[in-house]
Every structure is written in structure tokens, then in C-alpha cells.
């Protein structure tokens, strides 16, 4: 009996450590996404590099979609995929939504003043919020998320007039937090946290252009 109890404790320990491991793996995958900002620093006057800038991110996303299609249609077993959540068993994994969000922001030519903070929200604010959720009460998640997202928008818009920077930062951070908070089974928060503030900001951007308000310069210049 003692042996069985000991063995079950050992198995539980291993499962717990695995869960902990998976959780950090997902966090690191998120923060890794910020490297895609290198897109803006690459020179734009070299023909082959422009082609690569279009085709490489698109190929990555197409590859992940095909992979997920094969997994959901059970042609590849889910156990080969590391870090999936239970609710992702019968729908596309959140990494696909994450990748599609970044791809749309980069390839649909959203101004980088919009794309950069939205990508940072998904890559950095989201795992920070996840970590706060893991350790503290739920109410702190959205407060922390709002402050972190606000910081990212302020940094990207620091060249704008103060009133515009504040307006953009508050609207953007609120959009990101709403995108993260509102959960749908069929649409992942990794997509919403990027696209919702991006759409809000695009409306402000186009309105400002129409009215004739000076918009700030980009913060990343091509090499």
C-alpha cells in the first residue's frame, strides 16, 4: 500500500512539474514573438529582402495552419504538440491566432506606430497578465495589463503631441485589455489583444489624417 501511495505521489509530482514547465514554455513563446519587430529594421531598398519580408512570415503562418488542420482532422496526434490547452484540442491552437495577428499587422501595412505597441501587448503584456493571474487575484490582472499596455503605447507615441499620446495610449491599452478579457471559444485572446487596439487606433489615425492633425514619425528606421 505504502509503495502504491509513494508511486502515485511520484507521478503527481512529475505531472505537476510538467504543467509548470508547459506554462513557462508558453510564456517564452509569447515573448519570443517580439523578435518579429526586426521586420521594420530590415532595409526596404533590396529586392530579395522585400520578397523575403513578405514570404517568410506568410510561409510560417501557412505552415502552422496546415499543421493545425492535420492535428484537428486527427491526421497528426495532439500529443505531438507541446503546450496545448484542453480547450485547444478540437480547435486551432492559440499560437496560430497569435501568428495570424502579427502577420496581419505587418503585411496589411498598418502604420508601425499602431503595429508595434499591439505586437508588444500580445508578446509581453499577455504573459505578464498570465503570470499575475497565476499568482494574484483576478482584479489585479486587468490593472497590471492596462498599465503595461499603456507604457508600450506611450513609448511608441512619444514623438506625438502629449494630448494625442495620452489619447492613443488610453484607447490602445483599454482595447488590449478588453481583447484579452473577452474570451471566445472560436477566437483566441492572442488575436484579439492585437487586433482590437489596432482597429481602434486605425480609426483615430485615419480621422487625424482627415482632420489634418500632425501624426508622429515612426520609431524604427530601416537599416
Amino acid at each position, binding site marked *: 500500500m505504502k509503495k502504491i501511495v509513494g508511486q502515485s505521489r511520484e507521478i503527481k509530482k512529475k505531472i505537476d512539474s510538467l504543467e509548470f514547465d508547459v506554462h513557462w514554455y508558453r510564456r517564452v513563446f509569447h*515573448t519570443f514573438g517580439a*523578435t518579429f519587430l526586426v521586420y521594420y529594421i530590415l532595409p526596404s531598398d533590396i529586392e530579395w529582402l522585400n520578397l523575403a519580408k513578405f514570404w517568410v512570415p506568410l510561409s510560417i503562418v501557412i505552415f502552422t495552419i496546415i499543421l493545425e488542420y492535420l492535428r484537428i482532422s486527427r491526421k497528426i496526434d495532439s500529443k505531438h*504538440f*507541446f503546450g496545448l490547452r484542453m480547450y485547444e484540442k478540437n480547435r486551432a491552437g492559440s499560437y496560430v491566432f497569435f501568428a495570424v495577428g502579427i502577420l496581419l499587422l505587418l503585411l496589411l501595412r498598418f502604420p508601425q506606430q499602431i503595429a508595434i505597441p499591439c505586437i508588444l501587448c500580445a508578446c509581453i503584456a499577455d504573459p505578464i497578465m498570465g503570470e499575475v493571474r497565476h499568482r494574484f487575484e483576478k482584479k489585479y490582472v486587468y490593472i497590471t495589463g492596462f498599465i503595461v499596455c499603456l507604457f508600450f503605447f506611450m*513609448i511608441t507615441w512619444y514623438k506625438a503631441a502629449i494630448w494625442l499620446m495620452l489619447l492613443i495610449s488610453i484607447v490602445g491599452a483599454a482595447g488590449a485589455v478588453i481583447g484579452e478579457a473577452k474570451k471566445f471559444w472560436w477566437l483566441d485572446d492572442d488575436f484579439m489583444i492585437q487586433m482590437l487596439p489596432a482597429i481602434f487606433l486605425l480609426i483615430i489615425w485615419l480621422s487625424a489624417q482627415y482632420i489634418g492633425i500632425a501624426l508622429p514619425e515612426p520609431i524604427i528606421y530601416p537599416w
Partner: protein
Amino acid sequence: MNDKAMEYLKNDENKAKILRTELILTPLLVALPVVVSFLFLHHWFENGYSVGNPAFNGELMLAFIILVSNIAFDIPFVKTMIRYRKK
């Protein structure tokens, strides 16, 4: 979405595969963000700091954000991986 649904898919059979996936991706996940942040730092230093052009300060801030956030999450990740491998 209830708390139960937030649990990860667990499977005791594929520990070896899991470990392999992590080992293959770890160098990329850890090293690439550091390389990119140093790229931003270098670009800022060459075109901004050394010629006194403040327009590149945004790249300096982005470099720090990418570097600090990645290191902050890489450390516990690598620690748990080493601990798991020892088991």
C-alpha cells in the same frame, strides 16, 4: 471557459518527445530575441547616439523592452527545463 478547460493536455507517454521539442527550440527561443535587441542597440548607437540624433531613441527603448522581457521569462523557463531533465 471554466478553470477545468484551462488545464494543459497531459500525456505521460510522450515525455521524451516533449523534452526533445523543448531542446530543439530552446536555443532559438532564448538567443534570437537577444540578437534582435542587440541589433536595435547597434542601430541606435551608430545612427543615434554617435551622431547625436535623438530620433533613434525609440529603438533603444524597444531594445531594452525586448531584452528585459525575454530574459525575465527565459530564466524560469530554462530552470524548469533543467530541473525536469534531472528527473
